[in-house]
């Protein structure tokens, strides 16, 4: 009975919870990718020189799988050499970081509609405001000055093609 009681805590010490989750997710991805390799078009041996297109990815997937199986226990070896794998992830992801990720994803998703110039302006407005920049003079000069600089440098001087997007509609 005594042994049964201590078993979970020993197991807990053996596995790193976060690394175990990572390992499970990665193993699931490997299984999915392996399945994908079985669906690759079949090529005659003569044509593929006996090296079918799935061979190399499958070798890689197997090696990665072998390494991933060690990940949940790796913290034990790292601790012995004075390294703490949990130091960077001890705190949850900050709200400001999640918000930043959402804003940038939304901007990129709407960039084809907005066009390049408006997308640049959208980034210049939304990120500083979201991050708490409230100095009006600074904001206005940044929102006008920086996109203008970028458009002149990349579109006019370097000749990068900027999609007009909404601006084209307004023009017409």
């Amino acid at each position, binding site marked *: 009975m005594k042994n049964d009681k201590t078993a979970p805590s020993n197991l807990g010490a053996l596995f790193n919870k976060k690394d175990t989750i990572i390992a499970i997710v990665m193993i699931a991805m490997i299984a999915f990718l392996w399945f994908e390799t079985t669906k690759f078009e079949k090529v005659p041996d003569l044509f593929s020189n006996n090296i079918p297109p799935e061979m190399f990815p499958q070798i890689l997937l197997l090696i990665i799988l072998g390494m991933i199986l060690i*990940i949940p226990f790796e913290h034990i070896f790292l601790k012995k050499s004075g390294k703490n794998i949990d130091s960077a992830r001890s705190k949850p992801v900050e709200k400001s970081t999640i918000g930043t990720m959402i804003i940038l994803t939304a901007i990129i998703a709407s960039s084809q509609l907005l066009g390049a110039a408006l997308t640049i302006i959208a980034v210049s407005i939304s990120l500083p405001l979201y991050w708490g920049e409230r100095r009006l003079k600074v904001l206005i000069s940044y929102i006008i000055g920086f996109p203008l600089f970028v458009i002149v440098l990349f579109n006019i001087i370097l000749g990068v093609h900027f999609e007009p997007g909404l601006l084209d509609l307004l023009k017409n």
Partner: protein
Amino acid sequence: MEDVAKGLGLLLEFENIILILSGVLIGVLVGALPGLSSPMAIALLIPFTISLDPVAAISMMAALYCAGTFGGSITAILINAPGAPPAVATALDGYPMAKNGEPGRALGLAAVSSVFGGIFSLIIFIFAAPLLAKLALEFGPAEYFGLAVFALSMLASMSGKSSLRNLISGLVGVLIGTIGIHLTTGVERFTFDIPDLEEGIHFVPVLIGLFAVSELFKQSEKLNAIVERIQAKALRLPSLAELKKLKYTILRSSGIGTFIGILPAEGSTVAAIIGYNEARRWSKDKDKFGKGSPEGIAGPEAANNAAAGGAMVPTLALGIPGSGSTALILAALIMHGFRPGPYLISETPEFVYAIFGAMLIANLGFLFIGLIGAKFFSLVAFIPKKLLWPAVFIFSMIGSYSFASSMFDVWVMLAAGLVGYFMDRNGFSAAPLVMGLILGKLVEESFSQSMIIHDNNFFALLESPVVLLFFVLTFLSLSSPFWTKFFSKK
């Protein structure tokens, strides 16, 4: 010597000099801006250098790399936050010296030691290059495969906390490299019926995402961090008497840095730390270390810049980079149609010497720029993060988009940024993934060719002594954590 002259001749065009000096300026600026790094700047620069002549493009990036290593010491000295990892040891004595009211002296010591270290390593390379070129005669597909396997094994010690996670990152990079149409058979692999994936995932948006966008996410966690900044009015060059006192420290560290830089996958950071430790060990004033010792600045600075030059040797001669920056320079070389490795030196020696010439100019350039612009660079550190990082994101978007005028690449960049952020939180480094992605095609191609040549008999590869040597080195590299522990116990 004829090749050296030809190489330097390539640089003498006005446009090339301007581009090298721009690289120096960007490098020092990026170094002086906390959070920005040379790999990030090189990643952002790559798409815009496609249309340039390869000499001009690579020279600019090499100059940026050299100057960025020095630039990192500006923030290390003025705000006690190394702008780049190689400057971590410089902060130990640079910041106390700046706090003691001598920021200009600290910057001057860092600049002169960096210049000396950088030039020292370049001279060594000029003599070593012909010997490395002879290696090329021994190389066929099997040898390239052996070399690529060795390069991948070296990813283990590239950066980060865990060798295992570095290797996984590297192999995932190689796996990403298999996406798209298989060159030999024309079969689509991992394309999931998405037309944009047929040509594979290009490394430019991936590396912009991994180096710039993921850093933006990291910086968004500490937007309101307050740092104490010391303003430098001017960079003050050390006197001759002071240089005389420091000559052995600088020479020793330059030697250490060059040697460590040449070792594949050992970068400037390791060199700087060893340079600092050795400076302390040989110093007569050990007590002054940590309180603003000039040797504590000269030692790591000479070592890290010497290592920057030294690291270009395995990058160019073997295709094995020692750091994020050299990995990106390698990527740029491949993009410009070069195949880094032994043939690069034997077939295009003037190109290789031109790169080293550019690094030489860069070393002198950042001393000059530091002399006239120290005050400006110390002010640069005051640019608010809330305005700086949106600008970085805009450059990232334009860089990813302009590469192939494709919005798909912008999505790849964002995805790489998100993946890079979570990788970093969980101890997986980005640099090995990029390296894997860059080396991936070479690994598969040389593997296939070797197997065809040897009738699919893997063990026949070992008949080549060079392949055998690389496999032994791979084994030693992967087992190093065990045998170093074994010997340290003894």
